[in-house]
């Protein structure tokens, strides 16, 4: 009795701020709702059909996918190596500093962190271009070029994601059986060999977990793209179009809430597929 009574407030909140809006997203995605009009006619999958041929949505989906996988490709190998090195130096006095310094970008507020990178990439004032010109390369307008600005978002997001991945890998390293390593060392395996033939395969579940988390947050990327790509001097900055931005524009600028909801459903689909892949792989591992 106590249990159910005590659960009631949480369940009520959950129903109101999670379950109902998730359901509403699914429902709206099948309806045409243009905020201004009162009725919301049911239109089946018409929103999704329209999405498939919407150039802005395609651009957003492509950019988001590139960002998500770009961050993954930079973060995972780097985090694995760094975590191995930090783990090797666990007993040194510097270990705490390493952990903290790599982790800091993950915890500082997003917008100020993005501002720091905005200065680095700035075409006129930024040290990146100054560095390039001082060694004889042409400066580039990093935040205005459509390809380069996506790259800038990837760099910023990787910088932030790295610390998280390193911490998770460190937890992984600490849980590895030391006996295997001692045996390998007796057999004459060098440290790089032990890393490649023992750590990497043993840490596969962790790699899988970090990969899914990184990909999911990559697909939800928004603030980084928003801050980096909008221009400080009032000129119409070239937006890096990502899924969440496209969604917000469709609902709050074009007043097409049903259409935006169908985009949200696509985003949900991607995230669900990623999660299912993770569960499937973990289960296979459990069986073998």
């Amino acid at each position, binding site marked *: 009795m*106590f*249990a159910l009574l*005590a*659960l009631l*407030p*949480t369940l009520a909140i*959950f129903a109101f701020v*999670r379950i109902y*809006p*998730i359901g*509403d*997203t699914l429902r709206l995605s099948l309806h045409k709702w243009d905020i201004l009009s009162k009725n919301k006619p049911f239109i089946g999958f018409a929103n999704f059909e329209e999405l498939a041929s919407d150039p802005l949505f395609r651009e957003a989906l492509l950019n988001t996918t590139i960002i998500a996988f770009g961050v993954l490709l930079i973060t995972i190998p780097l985090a694995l190596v*760094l975590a191995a*090195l930090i783990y090797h130096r666990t007993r*040194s006095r*510097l270990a*705490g*500093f*390493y952990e*903290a310094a790599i*982790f*800091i*970008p*993950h*915890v*500082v*507020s997003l*917008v*100020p*962190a993005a501002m*720091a*990178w905005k*200065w680095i990439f700035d075409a006129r*004032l930024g*040290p990146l271009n*100054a560095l390039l010109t001082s060694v004889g390369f042409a400066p580039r307008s990093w935040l205005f070029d459509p390809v380069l600005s996506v790259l800038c978002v990837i760099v910023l997001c990787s910088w932030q994601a*790295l*610390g998280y991945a390193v*911490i998770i890998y460190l*937890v*992984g390293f600490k849980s590895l059986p030391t006996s295997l390593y001692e045996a390998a060392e007796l057999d004459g395996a060098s440290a790089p060999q032990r890393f490649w033939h023992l750590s990497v395969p043993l840490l596969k579940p*962790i790699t899988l*977990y970090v990969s899914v988390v990184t990909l999911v947050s990559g*697909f*939800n990327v*928004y*603030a980084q793209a*928003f*801050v980096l790509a909008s*221009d400080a001097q009032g000129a119409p*900055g070239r937006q890096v179009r990502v899924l969440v931005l496209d*969604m*917000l524009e469709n609902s709050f600028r074009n007043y097409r*809430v049903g259409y935006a*909801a169908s985009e*949200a*459903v696509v*985003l949900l689909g991607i995230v*669900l597929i990623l999660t299912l892949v993770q569960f499937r792989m*973990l289960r296979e591992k459990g069986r073998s």
Partner: protein
Amino acid sequence: MSRRTKERLINIAIDAVLTAVCLLMILPLVFLVSNAFKTPQEMLAWPPTIIPDDPTVRNFRAVLSDTPLLRWIGNSILFSLLSTVCILATSAITGYILGKFRYRVLNVFFAIILATAIVPFEVYMIPLYFQAKALGILNSTWGLLLGYLVMSFGIFLIRQNVIHSIPDELLEAARIDGAGEFWIFWRIVLPLLRGALGALGVLAFFQAWTAFAWPLIVATTRDSYTIEVGLALFQTGFTVDLGRLSAASAVVLIPSITLFVLLRRNFVQGVASTGLKE
């Protein structure tokens, strides 16, 4: 070369690499803070200076007169604290009940909570916005709070902790002594969960403190912005220069870095436990 000298050399090399990487990681933030104290001329200098030659607080003064920066920070602090309190309260009680009581219906609740945890906030924030609008709480702390009242992961984390660190015998003994259920929760369970709640509190606070998309759509009047939104929209203004942006950013950054340095263990513990989901 003896084995020991070789090992020592390798360790020195590793330390050198790691130190270099760490410095590179914090360099953007160091520059941000240093730029905040620079004159426009010095910001252009190459190579950039880390300690300004001629430090000035002009940028800070300009930002404080251009924007209600302190008000934005106040909004963020209030919102983050309320969100932390709500998340700790709901997670503690729900996590405890899901961890220690055996009713079949609880499994259903737990499954639902886990299932919704997979759904990213961005997916359902637009319908949630219309709920906030219907309640008439847009542009208020309550509107912000609506998106950050509960945290599925928090419930999960506390449930795991309850299972691992609170023995059934302890609860049974208290019940035999005639303790009420609420008393048991308040006097026995909560104190034992202090560590886990501390870690969760830090995570919850920073989750709200760094929230962006939700505050951006809910708070649309200048006075109701959180600091993240205020800063992001401030940079799109017409007359803003990088010195002022850096100053405003530094004001936001310095407290969160200080907090991180003080509570580092809780941060790492909190994040590390998210990795142990499976």
